[in-house]
């Protein structure tokens, strides 16, 4: 698998929230199933990354995804999880254009701005759009380790089904202590989420530092 995109990040957060399975199914293409954390409760992954080195320079990105099962049997490489991004936003128009072309992620058309506020025991991410708040998310650390994660990313290009392997390497902490929280504010990006039954606290908190996000070759399947 050859690399088609590499992004160095200073900070990244991926927080898992329970959402109604019916809402998850509504955003997924028909060939993907949401993973249920419990009956009728699927997983909304809210991801925010501060990229400090890319072809367009530093920028921030917000991504909402539904967690889906990875394709274990069909691929030789075992990913730990799969995700289907259904709404993304960035602080940089060029970054948005490149990623939309390469990876077919569905981007919100306006820039966002983000703050990553780090203290010893908490990372707070505040996302804004046109000076209006979009979300306020905080996660906390447990023990730190250096790790590599393999994830499968699923995308659609019209009716074409696509997938890629996403490799994240960096300093990493994860736990399920339910110490984080998220507030969503009324904004075009959050309109659907605010209508849905999304838990305000993450049941799993991932926090990354000083790493690299690498996209491998995209395949149609």
């Amino acid at each position, binding site marked *: 698998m050859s690399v088609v995109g590499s992004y160095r990040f200073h900070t990244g957060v991926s927080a898992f929230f329970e959402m109604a399975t019916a809402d998850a199914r509504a955003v997924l293409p028909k060939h993907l199933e949401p993973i249920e954390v419990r009956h009728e409760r699927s997983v909304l992954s809210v991801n925010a990354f501060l990229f400090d080195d890319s072809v367009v320079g530093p920028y921030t990105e917000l991504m909402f995804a539904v967690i889906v099962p990875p394709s274990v*049997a*069909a691929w030789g*490489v075992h990913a730990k999880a799969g995700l289907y991004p259904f709404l993304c936003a960035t602080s940089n128009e060029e970054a948005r254009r490149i990623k939309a072309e390469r990876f077919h992620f569905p981007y919100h058309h306006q820039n966002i701005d983000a703050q990553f506020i780090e203290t010893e025991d908490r990372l707070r991410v505040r996302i804004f759009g046109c000076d209006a708040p979009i979300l306020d998310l905080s996660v906390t650390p447990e023990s730190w380790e250096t790790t590599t994660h393999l994830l499968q990313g699923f995308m659609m290009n019209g009716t074409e089904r696509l997938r890629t392997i996403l490799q994240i390497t960096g300093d990493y902490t994860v736990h*399920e202590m339910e110490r984080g929280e998220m507030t969503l504010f009324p904004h075009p990006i959050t309109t659907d989420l605010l209508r849905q039954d999304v838990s305000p606290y993450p049941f799993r908190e991932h926090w990354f530092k000083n790493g690299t996000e*690498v996209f491998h070759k995209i395949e149609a399947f």
Partner: protein
Amino acid sequence: MSDNTNESSVARGKAEPSAPPRRLDVDETDTAAVPAAMEYDYTNFYFGAGDDPFALLAPFDEWYRQVKPAGYYLYELPLHTAPGTRVDVEDTKTNEIRRGLVNFASYNYLGLSYRPEVKKAIHEAVDIYGGGSSGSPILSGTTDLHRRFNDEMAAFKGKEAVMVFPTGYSANVGTIAGLMRSGDLIVADQFAHASIVDGMILSKAKSRFFRHNRPDDLDRKLSGFSGKKLVIVEGVYSMDGDVPPLPELLEVCRKHGARLLIDEAHSAFVFGPTGKGLAEAQGVEDEVDIHIGTFSKSLGGQGGYVAGSQQLINYLRGFSRSRFFSCALSPAVVAGLRASLELVQKEPHLRTQLWDNVAHMQKLLAERGVPIGDSTSQVIPIMIRDDARIFMIGEELFREGVFINPVRYPAVGKHKSRFRMSISAAHTKHDLEEGANTIARVLGRYGICQS
């Protein structure tokens, strides 16, 4: 955009970080690195691509062959003795029999499964009835022993009627799916047992989960729904050993017109002045609408029950598919259960002994710095929190004389790995002290406690 924060460091998308971060480079030219097998778990093999139902079998098999020697072999270890306080267990990694291990893995909370009175009753029943019941309880599977045991259980619980199921699992599934329908609402504690969740799924009712032991969140989850509502909690949560605040939960149920079902799998026969369970202990035995429990834990046998009004049992008799499409409990098992129930009532000091043992073990572990969570029951979690090393620790405990179950993700959350310790009234002080010393010694090597 306003920014009135006082936090120590703020990074923005267009700003350079204050100090150059350490870099971790990846090979961007070749294949992705494949994580070690132990980084995967059962959740990675739940779905798979392709149309062949067997598509996942080979990858799963390959994974399991790699991880089994590293710790997964600690499950399904064959016992060569009764589930007493000391057990002989087969080490499937070395094919040795490890003898005289202190047993903290069995549910035999009152030590009844191997009592002479119980074994005698079973022997006598086998002589009369043979091995199995050979039929569904509604057809030919009910014997006079079953009828008598039903009546005795109803009298013990102080309820109009009881219905017996072949397992505790089927009691939950059959009761929940037998009572609730599509369009109804079931709200369960987020830590509800799989049998409760499966009953919810089979019922086709709308399902919600409230935050563990939080009446305020139950209130939110019940709000805005009109129709039939059932709330489900457990008497003792088997992974943490904690108990629900029943009076507060009942108050929320009554506010919303919801019925309350309690699964007393781990609390029946040990909690309360007469052993009825947690509802009795918290003074709400008659307020709880449906009581479910098992016979496989404190009674040391097998099976499950639902207790409640005669009308409830009459209705469920016709709608509990998990019961009437299963073979009835073996008469021999029922005979053993009758003897166990009699002992529970004749020997209340067993419960006293159990709680003395629980208090003693908690003290022993606390004195040795073993982290034991917030248990208030005979189920004591020993919190390891190290998902990667819990199997190694479990293996050392096993080799050094303690039989205890490791529990890790996905059975509990990530970084919530633990050993689940079950205390029995039959444990002697010597058993507990030897066990606590071994646990502290092994955990001390890993820096989890100071031994």
